[in-house]
């Protein structure tokens, strides 16, 4: 077995690992990047990127269907599954190729194979083209997370899909049952619903999108209802039976069992950390109770030479969190004084409409001892939203009543995933509600909603009546009623 030495070795080429490797190389470190499958990891190959290609296409179908309302008359759209899949593949290929080019251009050595720790300063990599021992004073482990499987729903890639099969668009089933009403389940379920499937979502908890502001969830739920999707909450998926006509998903609600006939099932109940086969325990790396690797704020594990970033280092499981952590770990290895010090970690859900959050929710702010002040602005009152005919949703901001500091934002509505960026910057810069309210926003645009929400929190919204927070003056009543 050939032994090779590097300044640092990154294991896993997802959005955490590939970024870490580039950053190491930028800082003059001789870096290797080990990947057993495809560069870009789940995000580029089977997650964020392909799903967004499908979501955009599905939204287009949806727009065409609704175009008649605006006087545009077309034939009902038909979907060429092969062609759409080819488009999606093209998108993925382009980005994966781009990662390869970036690694090469920065001088990162990509090693294809499966890595296993044999010492705190060495891994063995087994690949199709050979076996190597890679030695380095520092390692970054970024092997991410894998799909949680549930008994009775073994993923076969044919009838029972995981997200990985679903984004490959094998076909458009007549009736798709999604087990799990979380981000992945709802994003992909909505895609299939828009492409023509009947959709049933089975969620074990009392609410879909657990953790998201319930008021925002209601907007998503209304949309699902309008497209005649069925959402079953507090429902346990018990098992699956097959007969000549197709599949039946058995579920239990309030102790009563029922069956849902369908032709495909998507299992999307969550992700769990994936350190299997890495030999981390042999190297002495300490894992937490849920299987996440314990790290400090410089992403060092209990073994000082081994760093861990991304999903494997703990929630939130987000690609951009992994990338940021990859940069930090690389900088620490290169001797910089970097550490985790972000204030804002935005999260975006690509449902219809999109949901995005950053910072503290009202409850979280209260739990932390703030007296929160909330400002809300509905897209129904925003010129641009009305003009593009996407008026469902709102911007909600949370501030600290005492200081006026912005603490967080939840946006549900058109382009929420884009709009959240401004709130993240504001939080990171330590903005007051007033700072956002006083910043001129171009008209007519969707970000005006964020400005108006901050103004509303200050009781000064222009395009909404500032009713709840301020005691009304008697003479203001007629206007308020109007």
């Amino acid at each position, binding site marked *: 077995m050939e032994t090779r030495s590097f300044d640092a070795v990154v294991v896993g080429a997802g959005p955490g690992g590939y970024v870490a490797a580039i950053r190491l190389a930028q800082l003059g470190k001789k870096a290797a990047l080990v990947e057993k499958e495809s560069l870009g990891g789940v995000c580029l190959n089977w997650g964020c990127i392909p799903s967004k290609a499908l979501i955009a296409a599905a939204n287009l179908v949806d727009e065409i269907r609704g175009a008649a309302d605006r006087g545009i008359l077309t034939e009902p759209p038909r979907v060429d599954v092969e062609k759409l899949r080819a488009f999606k593949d093209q998108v993925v290929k382009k980005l994966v190729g781009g990662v390869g080019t970036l690694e090469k251009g920065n001088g990162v050595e990509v090693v294809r194979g499966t890595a296993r720790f044999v010492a705190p300063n060495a891994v063995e990599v087994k690949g199709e083209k050979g076996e190597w021992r890679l030695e380095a004073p520092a390692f970054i482990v970024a092997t991410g997370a894998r799909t949680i499987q549930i008994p009775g729903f073994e993923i076969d890639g044919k009838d029972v899909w995981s997200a990985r099969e679903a984004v490959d668009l094998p076909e458009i089933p007549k009736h798709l049952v999604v087990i799990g009403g979380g981000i992945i389940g709802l994003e992909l379920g909505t895609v299939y619903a828009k492409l023509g499937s009947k959709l049933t979502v089975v969620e074990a908890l009392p609410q879909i999108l657990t953790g998201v502001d319930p008021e925002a969830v209601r907007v998503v739920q209304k949309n699902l209802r309008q497209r005649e999707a069925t959402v079953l909450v507090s429902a346990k998926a018990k098992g699956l039976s097959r007969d000549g006509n197709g599949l039946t998903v058995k579920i239990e609600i309030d102790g009563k069992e029922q069956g849902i006939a369908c032709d495909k099932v998507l299992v999307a109940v*969550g992700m*769990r950390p994936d350190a299997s086969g890495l030999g981390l325990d042999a190297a002495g790396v300490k894992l*937490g109770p*849920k299987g996440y690797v314990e790290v400090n*704020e410089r992403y060092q594990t209990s073994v000082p030479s081994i760093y861990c970033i991304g999903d494997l280092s703990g929630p939130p499981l987000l690609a951009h969190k992994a990338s940021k952590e990859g940069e930090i770990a690389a900088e620490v290895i290169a001797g910089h004084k970097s550490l985790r010090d972000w204030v804002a970690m935005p999260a975006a859900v690509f449902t219809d409409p999109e949901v995005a*959050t950053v910072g503290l929710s009202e409850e*979280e702010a209260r739990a932390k001892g703030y007296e929160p002040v909330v400002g809300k602005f509905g897209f129904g009152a925003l010129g641009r939203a009305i003009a593009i005919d996407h008026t469902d949703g709102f911007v909600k901001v949370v501030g600290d009543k005492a200081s006026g500091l912005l603490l967080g934002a939840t946006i549900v509505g058109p382009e929420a995933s884009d709009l959240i960026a401004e709130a993240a910057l504001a939080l*990171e*810069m330590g903005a007051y509600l007033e700072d956002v309210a006083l910043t001129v926003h171009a008209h007519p645009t969707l970000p005006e909603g964020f400005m108006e929400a901050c103004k509303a929190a200050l009781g000064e919204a222009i395009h909404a009546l500032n009713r709840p927070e301020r005691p009304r003056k008697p003479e203001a009543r007629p206007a308020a009623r109007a």
Partner: protein
Amino acid sequence: MPYQLILPDIGEGVVEAEIQQWFVKPGDAVREDQPIVEVMTDKATVTIPSPRQGRVARLLWKEGELAKVHEPLLELELEGEAAARDVPGSREVAPPRPSPRDGEGDAPRAPLPLSREAGEGQGGGPRPRALAAPAVRALARQLGVDLQAVPGTGPGGRVTKEDVNGTRNLVNGAAHPPASTRSGAPAPLPPSPQPPAISSAAEDEVIPLRGLRRRIAEHMAISKHSAAHFTFVEQVDVTELTRVKERIAAAAREQGVKITFLPFIVKAAVAALKKHPSLNAVIDEARQEIHRKKTFHLGIASSTEQGLVVPVVRDADRRSLLDLAREIERLGADTKAGKVRREDLGGSSFTITSLGALGGLFATPIINHPEVAILGVHRIRPTPVVRDGQVVVRDVMHVSLSFDHRIVDGHAGAAFAYALIGYLEDPNLLFMELV
């Protein structure tokens, strides 16, 4: 609540002490009686041991800062408390997550102790975060500046890059510690007009202004800023004194005492001070009072490797010449060896400075505040002088008397100088003063 180690009383009248050196860092386990920190007062350097066993949670002062007596120095986590503190208190937002079936992939992880969230989220209201943009935070980390301790000058108290740079320069270059922390410690005196940042070349040797050097710096600056220095210079014919010294030295050597000029100068100064008591005084700036001393405790400026130290000859008026010589020798040896005792420092009302062989022609000595006068004695050299119309070669020395012109008028200072010169030129007169 962590245990707080309080800076104990470390000397009469001592209200603050400079943190010289920490022997521990956050995270270290400490035993009872383990030395924790070395602090320096204007009287002595003291090592403070830990009264308890535990783990260091936080050092509340940086090296070089002035800690106040009776205020906490550091926080210890006593046994059994560390675990209780390690409470999940993530400031990260719980993100929207797929609904977990078996509980995996969920729940915020308890941060490791290194994480700063560990100390927060424990009720008692949110700790105000230092408002600073990411680039400012990165700069602070790079420079090792604690953002919580930087007074922000931006809108709403935001910390700017200039604030961070300014704090760094204060810590590195000026006599004042960084101003108060956000967490409400009483603000120390506002820094005097912020010193301009000096450009530093990579090859410069940078020496932090700490310890004795800082004391000297502060002391000299106070003296120069407050006293109105007036320096009076005159030459002294010490030919006769040299002869007397030689004779006495021979006798003293038999008693194991080395006689120098200094005991004579001390004697002469005491005799002159008795005639001109306005120079044997200290000033109380705060109360605007002059305290004329009835005691004659004379400071003798001495150089050491670390810097200038002024041990004090107590009751110089009540000591014999031999006794004075002995005492001056002892103080000199102790000071050089760094063993000078607390009771040998402070309380003087007049100071003599002598550079010995490097004495030069004359100088402009800086008064040992709060005293009002200082005498510099310089090199003795054979010099042609005119005596009775003839040029003769005599042993001549210059004296430089600096006095605080706020307190001592010119003619009073000059009169004192001539009285002193009189004793030195005719040492027989001194015998009248000898005890």
